[in-house]
């Protein structure tokens, strides 16, 4: 994790091909979620799990984040967590909007 790469990131092509295959399978699975018309919690949890797995594989392997130094990993991956706070704020806000629409406009 803390090895420096002065001559760039070099990894075997077979690794990329394996990840490529894995991403294909995960995409097919998330498409199947829609195709099989799963509903409710099962649908949403499967969509999010497949999405996070795909995102993780792309960031770790294709973007080589797995082999970068801890300083770069933290500088890039921690700030986007703010978006989770923003999401929570906007959920509260939009539910209030919906509430007022139902109360005063219907």
């Amino acid at each position, binding site marked *: 994790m803390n090895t420096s790469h002065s001559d760039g990131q070099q990894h075997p092509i077979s690794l990329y091909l394996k990840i490529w295959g894995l991403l294909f399978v995960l995409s097919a699975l998330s498409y199947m979620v829609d195709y099989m018309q799963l509903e409710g919690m099962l649908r949403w949890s499967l969509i999010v799990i497949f999405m996070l797995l795909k995102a993780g594989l792309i960031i770790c392997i294709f973007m080589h984040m797995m082999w970068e130094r801890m300083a770069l990993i933290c500088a*890039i991956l921690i700030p986007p967590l703010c978006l989770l706070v923003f999401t929570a704020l906007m959920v509260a806000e939009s539910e209030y909007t919906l509430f007022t629409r139902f109360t005063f406009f219907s």
Partner: protein
Amino acid sequence: MTGLIADFSADREAFSVPWGKAMMWIFLLSDTFVFGCFLIGYMAVRIAAVEPWPPTSEVFALTIAGHSIPLVLIAIMTFILITSSGTMAMAVNYGYQKKRKKAALLMLLTAVLGLTFVGMQAFEWTKLIEDGVRPWENPWGAAQFGAVFFMVTGFHGLHVSIGVIYLTIVALKVLRGHYERKGYEIIEITGLYWHFVDLVWVFIFAFFYLW
């Protein structure tokens, strides 16, 4: 962890990577916030919409040989983008091996796949506009659908188009041997941008099309 503390307290460059790569990462971080805000805005209007949200599974269905297959075009676009990410990762590898012809050809292949993606997106937009989708109205339900669709997929499509141009320019320079002495970090940097475009599509696919 000790490495992290040493890097930040050493009173010198914190990230021991080429400056172009650090700047690309910082640009991608800012782009993360742009797309993050778009998707959060989409979530907010969808929660607050009084009318039902249009059923994306049916809206984006295509009729092939008499059967209506849900989301089929979007699924093909997803596979094309993932494939382009794979060819890009291989181009980075060949670049570092100094096999510049192979690297440039794989980058051009990546650009062609990206162009295919944009072409299919243009087809999808045309189809939806013919169906009567506008940023302010659509035949199926909540009026906000059109605005979100055009904004989010449009901005992503713009990123893919810029990526195609960027890839082509760098690939041609690689082919000419422009980086023989400088080193081939540039392919990895271009690759970071391209993988990021793929990454954003993963989130759009999950939240906009499947949700």
